[in-house]
């Protein structure tokens, strides 16, 4: 199979590196520009990949895993050496995993974690309140979801700094692409070693936690293997560490710079869930990908088997042909049909936990620190992949 279409495609070609940091808003503007060029554009970076720019095509790709496989999920890593579970598996194997994992991540199960999640958030926020300023990303947005995941999964809270350092290399390294990949791979290996030790410990001594429960998973009637468990836990921990943090960065940037929207969350906290859905739509920052299994086309653009497709979920949320005034945050929009958590059978397994964390963070923060503004600090920049902003200095009157 080749990674390039055999005949020249009609879609416009670009050559840009997703590793670049741009000033906040720069990537959004860039992707909006791509949509204006046509329904599909191509980037020649890596071995090349296609980027559908409209909601309907992004949704169609996500809903057709037989044609658009998640066996490779990074558009410029078409032959990955890793196989995250359940993200990168398909067919019946995927269905078996999701059926067994679903109950641990269902809305009902997550509702039961509310008090734990809230205690983590309010503890961190109370520590910050008296300081009058913080970097939201390092002081709260990264710590909070990581602490929640450690607690829910059954990992020691004192491991937080170690995992945050690895997370930095996995998701936030910038610079020379080869160096970025090397740092990422080294950190991924370290997370793997860390989790392998924890799984071995639970096999020897069970506890009332999710690692212990996962030892009971069965695939095709046989017990789950250690390799499968590692491929599952590694993905879950890495996803849980970073995606909520990234979204919090965009949420709080918006609220720090739009006092009327912030005031509404403070005065009418019951509007927070709806406001959160609107911000998820507007700031869907996750970038994922699919590998094409057969010759096909997207919006008339021929796409050969073996090609990669990049799905920039923000382009769906900002598609004016699907959402009126898509570039505006409208807290009264009243829908939650956005693709911030993807769509199709691979819809984010942790979406209900993520929603709970985001909602609780907004509720607890605005109870304690209702008025705040952008503070002094490094320029705020964003990554061209699923990594959010690098920093978000906030300040408030003590």
């Amino acid at each position: 199979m080749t990674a390039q279409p055999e005949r020249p495609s009609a879609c416009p070609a670009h050559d840009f590196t997703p590793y670049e940091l741009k000033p906040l808003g720069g990537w959004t503007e860039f992707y909006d520009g791509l949509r204006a060029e046509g329904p599909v554009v191509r980037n020649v970076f890596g071995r090349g990949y296609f980027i559908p720019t409209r909601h309907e095509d992004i949704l169609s790709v996500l809903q057709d895993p037989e044609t658009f496989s998640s066996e490779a999920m990074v558009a410029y890593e078409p032959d990955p050496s890793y196989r995250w579970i359940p993200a990168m598996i398909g067919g019946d194997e995927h269905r078996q995993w999701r059926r067994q994992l679903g109950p641990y991540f269902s809305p009902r199960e997550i509702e039961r974690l509310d008090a734990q999640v809230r205690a983590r958030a309010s503890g961190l926020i109370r520590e910050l309140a008296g300081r009058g300023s913080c970097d939201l990303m390092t002081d709260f947005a990264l710590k909070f979801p990581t602490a929640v995941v450690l607690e829910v999964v059954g990992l020691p809270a004192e491991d937080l700094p170690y995992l945050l350092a690895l997370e930095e290399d996995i998701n936030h390294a910038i610079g020379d692409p080869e160096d970025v990949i090397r740092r990422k791979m080294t950190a991924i290996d370290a997370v793997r070693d860390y989790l392998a030790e924890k799984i071995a410990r639970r096999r020897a001594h069970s506890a009332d936690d999710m690692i212990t429960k996962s030892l009971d998973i069965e695939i095709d009637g046989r017990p789950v293997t250690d390799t499968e468990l590692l491929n599952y836990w590694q993905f879950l921990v890495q996803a849980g560490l970073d995606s909520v943090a990234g979204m919090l960065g965009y949420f709080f940037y918006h609220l720090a710079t739009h006092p009327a929207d912030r005031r509404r969350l403070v005065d009418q906290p019951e509007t927070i869930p709806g406001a959160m859905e609107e911000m998820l739509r507007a700031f869907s920052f996750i970038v994922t990908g699919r590998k094409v299994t057969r010759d096909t086309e997207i919006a008339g653009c021929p796409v050969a088997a073996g090609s990669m497709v990049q799905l920039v979920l923000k382009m769906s949320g900002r598609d004016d042909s699907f959402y009126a005034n898509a570039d505006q945050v409208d807290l009264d929009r009243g829908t939650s049909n956005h693709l911030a958590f993807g769509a199709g059978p691979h819809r984010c397994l942790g979406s209900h936990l993520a929603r709970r964390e985001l909602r609780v963070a907004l509720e607890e923060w605005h109870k304690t620190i209702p008025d705040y503004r952008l503070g002094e600090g490094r320029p705020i920049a964003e990554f061209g992949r699923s990594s959010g902003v690098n920093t978000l200095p906030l300040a408030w009157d003590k």
Partner: protein
Amino acid sequence: MKVSIDLDKCCGHARCHAVDSELFLLDDGGYALRPEIDIPPGAEGKARRAVTSCPEGAIRETAS
């Protein structure tokens, strides 16, 4: 009014359940439980909101 849910298309976003957790019941895994739902008088607005809130387009109004 009735709505139908294509259970094969449901991917567990649970947006309908967020609109009304009594009308739109979920199974243990968090996916839609029932394919056909009778909407009681007065709940039509919520039902329509559930239809438009589904990211998969899995919910349809089938009778009014």
